[in-house]
């Protein structure tokens, strides 16, 4: 029962942090917005009111985008680290970032006027690349190490492709730089909705199968001896992870770092039980994305992207010294 209490305490603590981070995110931005103003604007329901419009079309989508992207990337990272039993793994190891980046740039180069196609291209690229990497690894034995090697190899090839596109079509891809760094600025509800639906499905599946993830973490041989069809279950988890991360990068760009750091922090406090690690990662991922975005957006304008990168390197260094 002791561990049950600890889990409940952790989740409640993270929920409180999330509530705080949501407030921070909603009330920071390039124009100040107080709680009182917002309350009056929402009560009046005047759609032409500036405060109302800022809240509905800028702040709310941005906050929701950070919540969904943070949760999705962190859970995706937690799944991939557990499935591959590799602490350095994150969604980019299964080609999510390189696949999404390459397809987004390809779409931007082929159809420079159709910017709406970029998120879709990113999603398709992420999912297709991770499935291709899995198929490649399966063909050569489907062990964890072949999956990592296939991921690294395919990602390198796609990164080279990204460089080629950048050199060949510098004018067309100039707008895609923001996408490559990752940002929640300019996210609309229309872009968010389909991705959010997929993320919710992915999170539910991750929670439902979190016990199986525990068994898989015992090692492939023990899991198989316990009656698990290891190849099928591993494939299922890779699909869930790429669905989550692919959906997130489709509207938020390449924010892969959350998927690396947050699961480590969660495991540090929640232990090795994925039934607790997964919800903790979802909550902490959301908090992490919200806080980074709010700090960058509100206090280091217009350096939010740089701030995120700085955070990344800082967190990576401090987590290295912790673990």
């Amino acid at each position, binding site marked *: 029962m002791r*561990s049950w209490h600890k889990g409940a305490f952790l989740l409640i603590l993270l929920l409180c942090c999330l509530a705080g981070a949501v407030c921070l995110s909603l009330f920071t931005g390039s124009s100040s917005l107080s709680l009182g103003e917002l309350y009056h604007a929402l009560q009046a329901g005047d759609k032409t009111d500036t405060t109302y419009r800022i809240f509905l079309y800028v702040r709310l989508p941005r906050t929701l985008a950070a919540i969904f992207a943070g949760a999705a990337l962190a859970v995706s990272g937690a799944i991939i680290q557990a499935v591959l039993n590799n602490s350095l793994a994150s969604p980019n190891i299964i080609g999510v970032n390189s696949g999404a980046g390459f397809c987004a740039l390809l779409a931007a180069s082929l159809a420079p006027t159709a910017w709406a196609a970029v998120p879709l291209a990113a999603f398709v690229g992420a999912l297709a690349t991770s499935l291709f990497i899995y198929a490649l690894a399966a063909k050569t034995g489907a062990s964890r190490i072949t999956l990592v090697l296939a991921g690294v190899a395919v990602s390198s090839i796609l990164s080279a492709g990204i460089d080629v596109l950048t050199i060949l079509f510098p004018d067309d891809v100039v707008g895609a730089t923001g996408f490559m760094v990752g940002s929640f600025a300019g996210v609309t509800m229309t872009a968010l909705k389909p991705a959010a639906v997929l993320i919710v499905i992915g999170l539910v599946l991750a929670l439902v199968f979190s016990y199986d993830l*525990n*068994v898989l*973490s*015992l*090692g492939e041989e*023990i899991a198989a001896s*316990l*009656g698990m069809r290891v190849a099928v279950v591993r494939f299922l988890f890779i699909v869930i992870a790429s669905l989550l991360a692919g959906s997130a990068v489709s509207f938020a760009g390449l924010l892969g770092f959350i998927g690396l750091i947050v699961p480590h922090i969660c495991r540090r406090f929640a232990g090795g039980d994925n039934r607790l690690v997964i919800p903790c990662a979802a909550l902490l991922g959301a908090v992490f994305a919200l806080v980074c975005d709010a700090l960058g957006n509100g206090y280091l304008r217009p350096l939010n992207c740089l701030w995120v990168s700085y955070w990344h390197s800082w967190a990576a260094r401090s987590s290295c010294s912790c673990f």
Partner: protein
Amino acid sequence: MDVKKGEILTLAGPNGCGKSTLLKAAARQLPLMAGEIMLFGRKLDDFSQKELAKQAALLPQSRGIPGIPVEQLVLHGRFPYLGLSRRPGREDKEKVAEAMELAGVADMRHRDLRSLSGGERQKAYLAMVVAQDTDLIFLDEPTTYLDIGKQFEILELIRRLNREGKTIVMVLHDLAHALTYSHRIAVMEKGCLLAVQQPEELFKSGLLNDVFRRRGPLGGGRKNILFHAPS
């Protein structure tokens, strides 16, 4: 080669002779290149993964060390019996308690696996295998990396499991242990089964001397159990 119900059969032989390969193939963790393995009169391939997990358990030599309490590890042994909700029932909890008692890990049930010594961890894994409640247990070098005292503790535990009715097939490197704790020993060399004998007979036959001293090519007339169909 037959394994008799209720015996401890040890696979012995020089490094690379195929002991672990045979053990894993018998637990359906490696594909067969030829021949056939039957379990309780049925072909191994006819079992579903869950059915097989209720009949035979494999404890491999190398595995990860997850950061979970001992009790949770032992509970994983009940995985083949859990429903879709993955919630353990009363019977599962009873089996887990019995298994922890039998393996002597009941008093460390709340401790994290990572904080245990090698011997304690091995006992915890054995408790998981016991909780799996199978008649047949495959153990791949269960005493490796342990000091001599702990090796005997583990071997005594294996003997206790056997007396509880489990059939045990294991790979051991220490011949003295194999001769002391097995009902029968299967001697292998270069993928071939040379003999399956009781320890006294085997010791007297001098075969062990031949196998462990001589590494020359094999003579004719011996059955290649991995690459030829059994006659």
